[in-house]
């Protein structure tokens, strides 16, 4: 891969390295009497130039966390800071790569990629075009620049979406289970592609996933969330050397990380499972006692 540079020729390294801090962030839904807390007192630091992966049992509030950091929703209490300044609403400083694909179906790959800078008008036309061409080349979609998203394969759509996010030069890239729904083969290729992309520029990255191995091979820090409402259960520092290779998943260290993470996740999953069981048991009891 060719090193990425801005149109002016200066390396982009500085633009992609924001520091995110979550301080006692909580979020719930519903009125007071039926309030459901989804995120509870989460404090977390996403270090600049590092990839922080977040894993948790399904339905634990990962997506809400993404929405909070992206600014689609605001926390009820606590603060979210980007480089020391509290974040407001959505901004291209914090770009999200969504689950499945969120490319505009009516725009071609090229039009999708230049969408952000074009509507903001914050980049000279020629520079934008050059940057888009460069990014298309980097994600291997030069030949597909005039195709519509429906004509691209799943893997191509994800790469186009990555390019669309990167061209906005976000200080933080947020990935919300970005490779979900891809077949196993494509998924592994995308992980490898993304790994190279990250290691080249080291943009600060918040990577939400439900796949442990994906998290371990990509992450510098692995955040394990508790069962709903989401709390930070543990942060594991992954000390595998970079550049990473997939073969490292077979190493003793990786195995230990995986064991530790799975144990915590299993515990949390069991909690939610037994909670459901006790609710069910209570319900059955209530119904049967009514009958007698």
């Amino acid at each position, binding site marked *: 891969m060719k090193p990425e540079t801005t149109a002016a020729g200066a390396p982009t390294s500085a633009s992609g390295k924001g520091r995110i801090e979550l301080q006692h962030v909580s979020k719930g839904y519903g009125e007071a009497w039926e309030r459901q807390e989804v995120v509870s007192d989460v404090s977390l630091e996403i270090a600049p130039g590092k990839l922080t992966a977040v894993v948790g049992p399904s339905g634990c509030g990962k997506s809400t966390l993404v929405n909070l950091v992206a600014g689609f929703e605001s926390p009820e209490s606590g603060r979210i800071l980007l480089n020391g300044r509290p974040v407001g*609403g959505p901004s291209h400083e914090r770009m*999200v790569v969504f689950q499945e694909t*969120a490319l505009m179906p*009516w725009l071609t790959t090229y039009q999708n990629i230049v969408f952000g800078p074009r*509507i903001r008008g914050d980049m000279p036309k020629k520079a934008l075009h050059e940057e888009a061409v460069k990014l298309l080349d980097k994600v291997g979609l030069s030949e597909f620049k005039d195709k519509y*998203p*429906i004509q691209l394969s799943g893997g191509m759509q994800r790469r186009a979406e990555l390019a669309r996010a990167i061209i906005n030069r976000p200080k933080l890239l947020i990935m919300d289970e970005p490779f979900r729904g891809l077949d196993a083969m494509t998924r592994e290729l995308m992980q490898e592609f993304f790994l190279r992309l990250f290691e080249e520029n080291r943009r600060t990255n918040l990577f939400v996933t439900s796949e442990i191995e994906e998290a371990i091979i990509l992450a510098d820090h692995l955040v394990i969330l508790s069962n709903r409402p989401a709390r930070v259960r543990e942060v594991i520092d992954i000390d595998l050397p970079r550049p990473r290779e997939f073969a490292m998943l077979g190493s003793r260290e990786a195995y230990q990380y995986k064991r530790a993470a799975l144990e915590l996740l299993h515990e949390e999953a069991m909690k939610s499972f037994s909670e459901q069981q006790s609710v069910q048991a209570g319900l059955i009891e209530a119904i049967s006692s009514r009958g007698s």
Partner: protein
Amino acid sequence: MAVAASGTGASGGGLRRLRWSALKRNAKLWRGAAAIALTLVLWECGSRASQQLGMQLPFIGLIPPPTAVLAAWAEVIPQFGYWESWYLSFKRVLAGFLSAMVVGIPFGLLLAVSRYCREIFFPPFEVLRPIPPLAWVPASLIFWPTNELSIAFVTFLGAFFTIVINVLGGARSIDIRLLRAAQSMGATKWDMFWRIVLPASLPSIFTGAAVGMGITWEVVLAAEMISGGGTQGGGGLGFFIWNSYMGGSLEQIVVGMFSIGIAGYLSSSAIRYLGDRCMPWRRLF
């Protein structure tokens, strides 16, 4: 290999293969044509069977055979009145349809975008929507000064409700991730509407248009049959059929029916064509 060695054999085979593939490419067309031809033959035999069998077949025996219909058609084609019927019906359909589009699309989008407007306008809209267009005829005859205007109004209503409900539904079901992605990239309200909501609603706008066009034809023809042939608000293909019925010409009734079929087909083809032109990303499969 042997075929490749003899030049003429190879080119002959190639040519044959070429013709065969061209035929296969048009297979859809051929099948369609064959089905229509078969229907016509069965119809002809069915309605002429009475002469051979000495008794009429049920249903089909009453209908004039296609040859007789074609003869009747050939008779009316040079007549000015026939083409005037086409012109009058098309004029009414287009007037009603276009006005419904012009009012309905912005209204539907407004309801979709603004919660305030939805809360105010949607309830009365939903009360008026189930009223069939033809139930509006008496009221509109009293309300509007001319028959022509009342027909136009009723036609407008027929398409209007369908278009609004389709546009509203389409614009309200836009994938939230598209809206959020645009928000992150700094889209203003203006961008949101013109670059996301409008293109994302196009498919449902065209669905609404296609359904609305069908309703418009129904309403126009019914209205033409009711109003009869006068100087005002009369004529049209609907009246053509009614007139043939009064005159007892079975052949002309069928001619009128097929004329409407062709007119409807032309209208919906036009909408499909426009839809394909406006939404290139949708005709890729």
